């Protein structure tokens, strides 16, 4: 047996190595970020799916916004709702809206947009209860097609916020003929929309490549021929990729790296307030200490919101009392950019409530989900301990955290940050609706329930706005739960590119210009 082991071992291992090298060379030719017409953006988590009705994931929608169009769109600066695919609309009565589409809008595969596409898309999400976006569109009863370009949206109950509802995550319009012909699975792996960019390739957890759709109905509005969304979960790696020019934009830059990104002469830090409010929800269920308003108020007064935003968020982020953010319909301006902090008063309140020698509670918090969530939780526990509230802090991995709350096993308090993709107070304030969080928060206020129910269907917009403002004041007086601050969006951007992030956390490629 003239087998020479050394050769056998060498050859076998060499082949594994050669296979790898060749494979990776022949693999995707990594278009370097320096190539002028390609924009490379680094995200923290991968896009989940192309099923626009089934992801509830802001960073996924940030990509879809460039591939699909809604009927209406929200003007980023003014907050007004404008026409997108729709040409015009007319309110026939409280529950029916007649909409006319713009003419000759092409899908990426050449198909022309018509009412059938809208009917299929909106009825899919409003009827299929297993879709994650279903609850936001259940109010739509059916779509009555008049002709190719006009149709009537019938809602089950009057929905003053319908326009906002049709200009958000889950409102993209899908090509019905393409889907019926090739099946939804084929659509999922080869998506087609009307947006300025069309699908090229998706290597999961690595990169999503889009290219410019030349026949975009909005005309030639973007400077980039190709866009690559890369997925880099590790913060320091994402920042390093930005600093070495490997990517043009990197999302979610942690505060520890803001200075380094801003000081580097090839990159700068682009920050804006988001409409995501960081809050501590507490139990109102009978028998829990937090059911007592004095305790809640003490918990709120003990927290120095400004100290949190200054020390942990480097000054970015705005302390607030109301969770409704600026630019949202029904925003109560006097409750924003302000906070209550009075540790002395907090101690008195605790004494009044009978906890002069200390109150023991448990605080649940996710870890690594929101900006500095773990650090903020620990700082709050520190602040509470100054006034005699001993909070046992318990961190949960995200899925457990969701399960814990859904099963109603959460104890005194839990930290949560919620955005508002509808930019309408309805979406933010329905969290104070009793049934919605029965067993989890059990907050019930007769007056508030009626106010919110009425506002939800009040077609008179001025009156509706006042109702929501009144609701926010009522919530503030009741100190239903401490609200901390509005989070900031922190993106690292290369100097070769000019971009300001928008409050809705969407990434509009066409707003990104070359310097």
């Amino acid at each position: 047996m003239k087998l020479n082991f050394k050769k056998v071992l060498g050859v076998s291992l060499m082949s594994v190595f050669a296979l790898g090298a060749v494979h990776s060379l022949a693999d995707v030719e990594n278009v370097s970020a320096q190539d002028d017409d390609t924009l490379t953006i680094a995200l923290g988590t991968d896009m989940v799916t192309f099923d626009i009705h089934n992801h509830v994931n802001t960073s996924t929608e940030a990509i879809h916004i460039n591939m699909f169009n809604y009927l209406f769109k929200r003007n980023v600066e003014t907050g007004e709702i404008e026409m997108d695919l729709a040409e015009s609309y007319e309110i026939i009565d409280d529950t029916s809206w007649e909409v006319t589409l713009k003419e000759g809008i092409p899908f990426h595969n050449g198909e022309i947009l018509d009412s059938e596409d809208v009917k299929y898309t909106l009825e899919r999400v409003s009827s299929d209860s297993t879709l994650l976006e279903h609850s936001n569109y259940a109010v739509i009863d059916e779509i009555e097609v008049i002709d190719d370009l006009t149709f009537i949206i019938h809602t089950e109950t009057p929905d003053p916020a319908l326009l906002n509802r049709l200009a958000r995550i889950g409102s993209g319009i899908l090509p019905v003929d393409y889907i019926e012909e090739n099946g939804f699975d084929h659509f999922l792996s080869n998506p087609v929309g009307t947006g300025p960019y069309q699908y090229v390739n998706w290597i999961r957890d690595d990169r999503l490549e889009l290219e410019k759709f030349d026949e975009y109905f909005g005309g030639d509005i973007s400077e980039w021929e190709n866009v690559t969304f890369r997925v880099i979960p590790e913060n320091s790696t994402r920042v390093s990729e930005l600093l070495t020019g490997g990517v043009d934009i990197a999302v979610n830059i942690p505060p520890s790296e803001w200075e380094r990104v801003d000081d580097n002469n090839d990159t700068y830090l682009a920050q804006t307030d988001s409409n995501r409010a960081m809050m501590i929800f507490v139990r109102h269920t009978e028998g829990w200490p937090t059911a007592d308003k004095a305790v809640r108020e003490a918990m709120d007064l003990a927290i120095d919101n400004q100290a949190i935003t200054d020390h942990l968020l480097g000054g970015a982020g705005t302390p607030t009392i109301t969770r409704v953010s600026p630019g949202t319909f029904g925003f109560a301006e006097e409750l924003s950019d302000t906070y209550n902090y009075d540790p002395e008063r907090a101690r008195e309140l605790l004494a009044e409530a009978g906890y002069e020698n200390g109150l023991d509670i448990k605080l649940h918090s996710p870890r690594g989900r929101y900006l500095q969530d773990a650090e903020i939780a620990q700082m709050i526990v520190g602040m509470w301990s100054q006034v005699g509230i001993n909070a046992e802090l318990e961190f949960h991995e995200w899925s457990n955290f969701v399960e814990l709350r859904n099963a109603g096993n959460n104890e005194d308090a839990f930290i949560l940050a919620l955005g508002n993709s509808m930019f309408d107070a309805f979406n933010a304030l329905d969290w104070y609706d009793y049934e919605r969080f029965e067993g989890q928060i059990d907050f019930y206020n007769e007056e508030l329930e009626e106010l919110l129910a009425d506002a939800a269907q009040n077609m008179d917009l001025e009156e509706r706005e006042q109702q929501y403002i009144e609701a926010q004041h009522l919530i503030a007086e009741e100190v239903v739960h401490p609200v901390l601050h509005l989070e900031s969006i922190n993106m690292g951007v290369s100097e070769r590119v000019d971009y300001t992030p928008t409050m809705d956390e969407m990434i509009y490629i066409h707003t990104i210009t070359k310097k």
Partner: protein
Amino acid sequence: MDAALNDNNEIQKNVRPNFFKRWGFLLWRSKTGTVGLIIVTISVLIAIFAPLLAPYDPAMINPASMLLPPAWLEGGSTEHLLGTDNLGRDNLSRIIYGSQVSILVGVASVVLAGAIGVTIGLISGYFGGWIDSILMRLVDSFLAIPTILFALVILSIFESGVMTLIIVLGVTNWVNYARLVRGETLSIKERDYVRAAHSIGVSDFKIIIKHLLPNVISSFIVISTLSVATTIILEASLSFLGLGVQPPVVSWGSILSDGRDYLATSWWIATFPGIAITITVLGIIFLGDWLRDVIDPRSKSN
């Protein structure tokens, strides 16, 4: 004269002073063994007397002094020798307290894994037959799934904390012990005195305890010392995955993983616990190697 080409030499074989003299000699002579013992003793002492040694409470947040560099770097203050982390907590105190959890998790999980492993090893080695084949297939299947995979899946289901960490690492690491102990049992079982005890009707249980266990313990000690090291390293990786110990509890692994975002700016937050882990593991492995040579002289690897 060319060194170390062939160590088969008559003199080495027939010079055998008595047992204790041998330990003393070997320890004193073998540099690595001594170094290992010193390091391990120091880290255990640090862990035991952490409350006395640590200058500050590890969880005390101090917004005023955030991200201070170590004392000897400019900008550092002597109050915080190793500087502070992003919440202004004293790094030195956190590393001192961290040793408690890291060593505790290492040792406790090894003891648990050892208990399970030795029992299964003894039973499977002693009784053999279909019991042995079933248990060995069980061992093969546990071996096929990398420990970190097990820990990842289990810890994400159950809330991770020090106790769950110990149980999970204990329940997944027993496999190496089982294989080792089974091998030893198989060889010892053939020995005459075991057969003799069997023939005069001594119960299996007693045989296992009296004859097999003592022989197996020695090599078990060697393997367990080394796997305390591997467990300490694994705990750091689990913290990276967000499944290690949760604040306010602190361990070397959790400090290291929390500090990783700061490696570019305040590198010391993550690097010092890394050094602590490396030195302790170095000590444990040297001690383990030395124990192996003292306990079973057959292996000539020293």
